[in-house]
C-alpha cells in the first residue's frame, strides 16, 4: 500500500487527492484551497483600496463595490482564514497527540469537500449574474431586498460549507478526546492541540445558529416565507441575533488556533516551555466560554435598550482579562529564554504589539456609550483587521513557515520569508492604523466612495499604499513556495532543531501511518523531554504490530458534489426555470445515493503488516 516513494503521474496524484482520507493530505488540500481563496479575497481587498484611494473614484461602480466588499469579508472569513486554520489543525494536531489519523477519516474528507464545493458555489456568483452584496453580515432587511441571486449564493454556499466546518469540528473533538497516545493527559497536550479542542467546541455550538439563520433566510428568499419580512409580521433583528450568536464565537474560532500556533512558536524558538501552561489553558477555555456571552456588542446601536447594552459591555470587557493573561505569558515565555529570530518567530514576536493594539481597541469598543460613535465606522474596520490580520493572518503566515517542512519535507527560504514578513508587517500597519482615525473623523464603513472636502483624502491614500506592501509581501511568499518546491531540499525529523512536541519526533513528512509505534508521553513537551535526556526518539508505548488503516474513498467528493448541484436547482427554481427542479432532484439523488453506498458497503480498511514495518526500518527507507 505504500505508494509514497514511487513517482506518480499527474492523473494518479489527482485521484489520490480526490479520494484521500489521510489527514495530512487533507491538510494539504485545505492549504491549497484556503490559499487560493486567500488570494481571491486579497485581490478583492486590493480593488477596495484602489477604489478608495481618491475621493469620488469610479474604478468600480457602487453596486459592484458592494459585491466586492461583501465577497472580501465572506471569502476571507469562511473560505480563507478558517480552511487555512483547518489545514494546520489537520496537519499537526493528530501528530501532536500521537494519533495515526483523526477519529473519522472519511468524515474528515467529507468536511473538506463540503467546504470546497460551498466556496466554489459562492464564488461562481461572480460569473452567474452577480455576487452577494449585503455585506458578510447580510443583515436581513437589505438581504431580503437585494435583487438577483447574489444573496441566494451566499445563503446556499455558506450552508454547504458550514456543514463541512461543523463535521470537521466534531471530528477534531472526538479525535482529541479518544485518540491521545498513552500518557498524553489533557494537561500534557500542546497548546495548539488545546486551541484546536476549544475551537472545535466553539464550532459545535456556533455553527448551528448560523445554519438556522441561513435556513430561515433561504425560506424567505427561495420559498416565499416571511421570517424577516416586517410587513408580514417578521422581524429583522432576529437575524442580527442569530448571525452574531454565531459571528462573535466565529472570531474566536479564528483567533484561538492563532494563539495555539504562536504558543508553539514562542516555546520552540525560545527553547523554553510555555510560561504558565495551566493558566494558558484556562484562559483559552475562558475566552471560548465568554465568547458566547458577548454577541450583542455588535448590536449596541440596534436599540436593545440600556440594560442589555450595559450587561454586554461589561461582559465584553471581561474577555480582555484572559487575553491579557495570554499576552503576558507569551512575553514571559521569551523572558529568560534563548530567542532565535526565525521567520515564524518574527511573526510571533510582531504579533504581540499588533494584537495588543487590536485588543485594546476591542476594549474601547466594549464601552457601549462610546461605541455609539465607533460602530460601523472605519474605527471598527481598523479594529477587526488588527485582530484578524494582526492575529489570525500573522499566525497563518507563521504556521506556514513553521509547519511547511513537516507538511512537505522541505523548508521555505528564510531570506525570502523575512522579506515577506517585513513587507507584510509594514503594509499591515500602514493600511490599518490610520483607519482608526478615519473612523473617528466621521467616515462610515462599507462606503464605495467619499466626497472630497471631508478630510479623508490623505489617510485613505496612505491606507491604499499600505495595501500594496501587503500584496507584494504575499507575492514574495508565493515565489518562495515555488522556488523551494522546485529545489526540494529534503529535511529530517526536527528541521528547526528546537522542536518540543511529538510531531517533530517523526519524519518530515511523516509516513502515512504517522507512528510506527505509538509513543509514550512522559510529560508536557514530550519530545523535548526525551531530547534533554539524550534520546533521539520517543520511547514506544507498544510493540511493533499491524496497523489498521482506512481505505481511500471517492464518496466524500460525490456527497458534496450532489449538494453543490442541488443548490443550483434550488436557486433557479425561483425563476421558474423548467430544468431547476430536475437538477435539484438529481443533485440530492447523487448525495443520498453516495450516502447509501457508504452505509451498505462494508469497508473495513486494510492492515499494514508488522513484517512490512520491520523490513522498512531495517533497510533504512522509512517513509
Amino acid at each position, binding site marked *: 500500500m505504500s505508494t509514497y516513494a514511487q513517482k506518480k503521474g499527474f492523473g494518479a496524484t489527482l485521484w489520490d487527492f480526490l479520494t484521500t482520507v489521510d489527514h495530512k493530505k487533507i491538510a494539504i488540500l485545505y492549504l491549497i484551497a484556503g490559499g487560493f481563496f486567500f488570494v481571491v479575497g486579497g485581490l478583492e481587498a486590493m480593488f477596495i483600496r484602489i477604489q478608495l484611494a481618491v475621493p469620488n473614484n469610479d474604478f468600480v*461602480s457602487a453596486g459592484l463595490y458592494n459585491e466586492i466588499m461583501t465577497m472580501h469579508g465572506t471569502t476571507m472569513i469562511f473560505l480563507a482564514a478558517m480552511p487555512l486554520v483547518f489545514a494546520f489543525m489537520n496537519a499537526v494536531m493528530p501528530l501532536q497527540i500521537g494519533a495515526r489519523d483523526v477519529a473519522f477519516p472519511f468524515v474528515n474528507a467529507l468536511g473538506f469537500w463540503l467546504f470546497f464545493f460551498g466556496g466554489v458555489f459562492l464564488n461562481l456568483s461572480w460569473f452567474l449574474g452577480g455576487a452577494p452584496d449585503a455585506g458578510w453580515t447580510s443583515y436581513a432587511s437589505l438581504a431580503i431586498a437585494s435583487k438577483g441571486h447574489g444573496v441566494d449564493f451566499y445563503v446556499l454556499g455558506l450552508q454547504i460549507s458550514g456543514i463541512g466546518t461543523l463535521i470537521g469540528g466534531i471530528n477534531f473533538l472526538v479525535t482529541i478526546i479518544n485518540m491521545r497516545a498513552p500518557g498524553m493527559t489533557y494537561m500534557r497536550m500542546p497548546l495548539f492541540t488545546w486551541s484546536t479542542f476549544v475551537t472545535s467546541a466553539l464550532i459545535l455550538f456556533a455553527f448551528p445558529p448560523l445554519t438556522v439563520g441561513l435556513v430561515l433566510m433561504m425560506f424567505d428568499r427561495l420559498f416565499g416565507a416571511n421570517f424577516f419580512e416586517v410587513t408580514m409580521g417578521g422581524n429583522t433583528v432576529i437575524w442580527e441575533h442569530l448571525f452574531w450568536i454565531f459571528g462573535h464565537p466565529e472570531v474566536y474560532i479564528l483567533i484561538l488556533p492563532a494563539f495555539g500556533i504562536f504558543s508553539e512558536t514562542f516555546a520552540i524558538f525560545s527553547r523554553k516551555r510555555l510560561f504558565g501552561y495551566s493558566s494558558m489553558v484556562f484562559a483559552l477555555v475562558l475566552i471560548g466560554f465568554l465568547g458566547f456571552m458577548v454577541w450583542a456588542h455588535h448590536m449596541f446601536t440596534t436599540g436593545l435598550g*440600556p440594560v442589555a447594552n*450595559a450587561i454586554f459591555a461589561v461582559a465584553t470587557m471581561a474577555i480582555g482579562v484572559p487575553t491579557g493573561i495570554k499576552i503576558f*505569558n507569551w512575553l514571559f515565555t521569551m523572558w529568560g529564554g534563548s530567542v532565535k529570530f526565525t521567520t515564524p518567530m518574527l511573526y510571533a514576536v510582531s504579533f504581540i*504589539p499588533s494584537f495588543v493594539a487590536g485588543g485594546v481597541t476591542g476594549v*474601547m469598543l466594549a464601552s457601549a*456609550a462610546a461605541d455609539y*460613535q465607533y460602530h460601523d465606522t472605519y474605527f471598527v474596520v481598523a479594529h477587526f483587521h488588527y485582530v484578524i490580520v494582526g492575529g489570525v493572518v500573522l499566525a497563518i503566515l507563521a504556521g506556514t513557515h513553521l509547519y511547511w517542512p513537516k507538511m512537505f519535507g522541505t523548508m521555505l527560504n528564510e531570506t525570502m520569508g523575512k522579506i515577506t514578513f517585513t513587507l507584510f508587517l509594514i503594509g499591515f500597519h500602514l493600511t490599518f492604523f490610520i483607519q482608526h482615525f478615519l473612523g*473617528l473623523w466621521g467616515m*462610515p464603513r462599507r462606503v464605495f466612495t467619499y466626497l472630497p472636502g471631508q478630510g479623508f483624502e490623505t489617510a485613505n491614500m496612505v491606507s491604499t499604499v499600505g495595501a500594496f506592501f501587503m500584496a507584494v509581501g504575499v507575492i514574495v511568499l508565493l515565489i518562495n513556495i515555488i522556488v523551494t518546491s522546485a529545489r526540494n531540499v529534503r529535511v529530517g525529523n526536527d528541521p528547526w532543531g528546537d522542536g518540543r512536541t511529538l510531531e517533530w519526533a517523526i519524519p518530515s513528512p511523516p509516513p502515512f501511518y504517522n507512528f510506527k509505534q505509538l509513543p509514550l508521553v512522559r510529560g508536557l513537551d514530550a519530545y523535548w523531554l526525551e531530547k534533554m535526556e539524550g534520546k533521539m526518539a520517543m520511547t514506544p508505548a507498544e510493540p511493533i504490530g499491524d496497523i489498521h488503516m482506512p481505505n481511500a474513498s471517492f464518496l466524500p467528493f460525490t456527497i458534496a458534489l450532489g449538494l453543490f448541484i442541488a443548490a443550483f436547482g434550488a436557486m433557479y427554481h425561483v425563476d421558474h426555470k423548467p430544468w431547476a427542479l430536475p437538477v435539484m432532484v438529481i443533485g440530492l439523488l447523487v448525495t443520498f445515493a453516495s450516502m447509501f453506498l457508504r452505509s451498505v458497503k462494508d469497508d473495513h480498511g486494510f492492515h499494514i503488516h508488522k513484517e512490512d514495518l520491520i523490513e522498512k526500518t531495517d533497510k533504512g527507507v522509512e517513509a
Partner: protein
Amino acid sequence: MKRLAKWRLISLFSILALILSGCGQPYLSALRPAGEVAEMQYGLMKLSTLIMVGVIAVVTVIFILVVIKFRRKDDSEIPKQVEGNHKLEILWTVIPILLLLILAVPTVADVFKLADVGKMDKKGAHKDEVVVKVRSNLYWWEFEYPDLGIVTSQELVVPTNKKVYFSLHSSDVKHSFWIPAVGGKMDTNTDNVNKFWLEFDDKKANEAGNLFYGKCAELCGPSHALMDFKVRAISQSKFDSWVSAMKDVKKPQQATSELAQQGQKIFSQSCIGCHAVTPTNATPEKARVAPNLTNFGERSRVAGILPHTKEDVKAWIKNPEKFKPGNKMTGKYPQMSDQELDALAEYLMGLKVQD
C-alpha cells in the same frame, strides 16, 4: 530675539494646526465634540485610551527588554525551563480587572444617561425640548416635528443648547442615523421605533459654521455612501422664526419670475406626485415617498451631496442615477429638455421660506 519669538509662534501655531487637523473637521469629527452627548462619549474615549496606552506601555517595555536581552547568543545554550509564577500571574489578572472596572463604571452610567428619553414620552406639548421624528428612506432622510406639525427633508434644523429627542424609523431597509460631531449613532430599524437624544452646543456650532454633517452608518444599498444629510444648528430665536416661516407656508408658494412660473408648471405636472412643497405633516407617511422640498432653495446641498447651485440641480434632475446609483427617483418622470430643466431649477432654487 524678536524673529525667534515669531518663529516660535509660527511653529506653535503649526503644531496646533497639526493637532487640530489630527482631530478632523469641526463639522464632522467625533474628536471635535459639539454637544453634551459627543462630549460624554469623547470623555469615555479619552479615559479608555488613557488606560489602554498604559497597558500598551507596560507591554512595550517588557517586549523591548525581552527582544533585546534574550536573543540567542550561543547555539548550545539551554535555558532553564520555568513552569510559571503564581504571583506574577495573579498580578496580571487582578490589575486588568481593576483597570476594566475603572472603565466599566462610567460606561454603564453613560449608557443609562444616553438612553434616558423619558421626557419625550410625556403627555402634552414639549416646551424645554424639541422632538424630531426621523424617517430614513433609500438614500434620503425625512425630519418631522410632530409638536410643530411640520416636515422637512435632507436638512435637519435644530435649536442649540437644548435637548433634541429623536425617534427613528426606517421605511425600507435598515439605516443608521449619525451626526459624528454631535453624538453617536442609532439605527433606524424597519421593525420598531428607536429613541435617543442629542444636544447641539451653541459655541461649537458656530465654529462649525452652524452646519453639521450627518451620515448613514449602516450598509443600505449601492448609494449607502451618498446618504448624507446636514444639520443646521441655530439659536433658539432663529429656530423659532424658521418654524413660524415654515408654518406660514399653507399652500405651495407661487413663483414670481416668468421662468420660475414655467418651472412650477412642470413641477406640478411631473414632480408633485412624490415631492411636497408644503411642510405640513398631515399627509400620511406612506404618501411622503420623496424629500419634502418646501425650503429647497435654502438648503446647502442638492440631493444631500452635490453643491447647491442651479447647474447641479439641473444635472441631478437630468440623470440622478449618475450621482446616486440605485435611487428611487430615476425614471419616475419624463425626459426633460434643457429649457425645461432650466425652468424647473429656477423654480426649485426659489423655494425659500425665509429671506
